[in-house]
């Protein structure tokens, strides 16, 4: 046994991290930019929040550029200019999303009441005080509509993706083009298609499944394209290995390729659901907006969250508008839950339980 003492392990450090001086410089630049924007808006005819933001970002970019130019020369200055531009772009992109979320929360939570989840509107009107009636029927309706849309579109979408990546037949190119084009179809067009193809000639009335069909039309391209991207990531080595072991192409795809892509395919499915959960236009046309719980998608008018929101806004009283915002909040929470689920399932390492 050696008696030599082990040298003490040094403490981990980050010599490349920003020093307090660097931090105070950055703070100084931000402060200076804020000051300039305040002064400029005060002394010039510029007005409003937008003016503050615009002047702030411009001033920040200019000061940051000059400071790094003086400190480290032109390349560093250009580098920090681009970093500033990218940050600005991100800020502009995120602002409306955050704004929507905040607005929905601020307005929605006032109309929020637990009875929303236990009652429907069959004996209440939208103008009744909050706490009477609820949107249970709409939640049930939305779930049924989305469920049937999923049942229709997920197999079609995934099989389309399998055709595009595995079979690669003569029609691969045109179908790929069609799928891409279809993801741009306005939802009202999908609604009108079902309206003209099914509602007018056959059913002559509203019901849930028609809405599901229209939603499925919107969902298939999302599911197909996402699945295709996921399947493309599976190395062709695995396909060859499956076939080289004496499997047919079908068995190789079913036993090797699809299981390897499983979590990604689940993500594709959930993204498709999230895409259509809030669709309004086809629902308004095709499913009606009953205020009563309807568990049968094949018969009778069916409420849904988008329809509930639309009707509540149309009623126009403070109570009904509060109800509408609460409906939006519930819908948004459902969509956020779905996206989170997609993220969690998609990030799971292949093979792990």
């Amino acid at each position, binding site marked *: 046994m050696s008696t030599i003492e082990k040298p003490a392990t040094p403490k981990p450090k980050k010599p490349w991290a920003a020093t307090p001086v660097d931090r105070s410089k950055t703070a100084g630049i931000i402060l200076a930019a804020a000051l300039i924007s305040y002064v400029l808006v005060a002394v010039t005819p510029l007005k409003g929040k937008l003016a503050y933001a615009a002047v702030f970002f411009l001033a920040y970019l200019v000061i940051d550029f000059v400071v790094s130019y003086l400190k480290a020369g032109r390349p560093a200055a250009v580098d920090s200019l681009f970093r500033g531009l990218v940050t600005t772009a991100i800020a502009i992109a995120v602002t409306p999303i955050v704004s929507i979320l905040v607005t929905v929360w601020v307005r929605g939570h006032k109309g929020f009441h637990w009875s929303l989840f236990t009652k429907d509107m069959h004996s209440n009107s939208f103008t009744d005080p909050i706490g009477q009636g609820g949107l249970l029927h709409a939640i049930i309706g939305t779930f049924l509509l989305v469920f049937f849309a999923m049942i229709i579109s997920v197999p079609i979408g995934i099989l389309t993706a399998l055709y595009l990546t595995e079979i690669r037949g003569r029609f691969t190119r045109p179908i790929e083009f069609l799928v891409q084009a279809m993801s741009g179809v306005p939802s009202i067009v999908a609604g009108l298609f079902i309206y003209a193809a099914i509602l007018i000639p056959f059913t002559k009335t509203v019901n849930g499944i028609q809405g599901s069909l229209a939603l499925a039309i919107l969902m298939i391209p999302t599911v197909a394209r996402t699945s295709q991207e996921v399947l493309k990531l599976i190395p062709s080595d695995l396909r060859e*290995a499956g076939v*080289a072991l*004496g499997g047919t192409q079908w*068995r190789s795809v079913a*036993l090797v390729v699809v*299981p390897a892509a499983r979590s990604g395919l689940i993500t594709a499915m959930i993204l498709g659901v999230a895409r259509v959960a809030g669709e309004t236009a086809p629902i308004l046309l095709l499913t009606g907006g009953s205020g009563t719980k309807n568990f049968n998608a094949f018969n009778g008018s069916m409420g849904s969250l988008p329809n509930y929101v639309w009707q509540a806004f149309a009623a126009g009283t403070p109570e009904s508008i509060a109800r509408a915002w609460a409906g939006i909040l519930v819908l948004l929470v459902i969509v956020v839950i779905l996206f989170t689920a997609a993220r969690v399932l998609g990030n799971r390492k292949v093979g792990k339980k």
Partner: protein
Amino acid sequence: MTIESEDNQGDEMETTASKGSLSDIAAARLQKQPGSNALGVGLEARGVHAWFGEKHALANVSLDFWPGTVTALIGPSGCGKSTFLRTLNRMHEFIPTAAMAGEVLLNGEDIYAAGVDVTKIRLKVGMVFQKPNPFPSMTIAENVLAGLKLAQLKVENKDDLLEECLERAGLWSEVKDRLNTHGGALSGGQQQRLCIARALAVRPQVLLMDEPCSALDPGSTLRIEETISQLSSSVTIVIVTHNMQQAARVSDYTAFFLSDGGPGQMIEVGSTNEIFSRPKDERTENYVTGRFG
């Protein structure tokens, strides 16, 4: 057409001023005579050509593989060795623009004849790929037995088969306590041996190996070579390799492929000993002594 590893070998051999070092290894390996350990199977290529679209990649290769022997295919990159290998179990047709001509006889029957069930051919002629490719969604045990599921074969005792295949691939002792964990956690060399075990589980008569060690470290390479030596008594092995010492170590026969800008051709075939010590063709000699390539 320069290959790094071969350059290195060339340097090495010139400095030791001997092609003897290589041929000695080859001589030591050449114990098996053609026909010994015969399994009653044979793989014979007759005038095989291959194309990718308009490109004629391989011209007129005729080559026999004796049962129970190891044959190495050597040659510079782009000379058609891998393409030839893939014509032997009909993996060539996996590439959309591929075409071929000639015959490949397995037990005397052309595998390209009309009406032949291609999946049955691939069961008899298995393949190990350049990069280890265990199926990511399956455990180690499931990987080994994947061929049974893929080809819908029935087996009496799966546990025995599992142990036997892993044993033959030289992996059993390393994984026997974690058969139900996923193959991705294994090292590259272990993954490659897992792929060998997987290929063995459907009991192929011939095993094609496409540069099976090119992605592995020397230690793992050695283990795979040991595995190949052990397997060679029961399975006909065809191995493509860029490593000439490996060819000399593991193979009974060596075929040299070369492309002079046109389609790849087989220049010479013979016992590994002959190819490395007294090749008949000057180009072969230049290649195995490291003067080019």
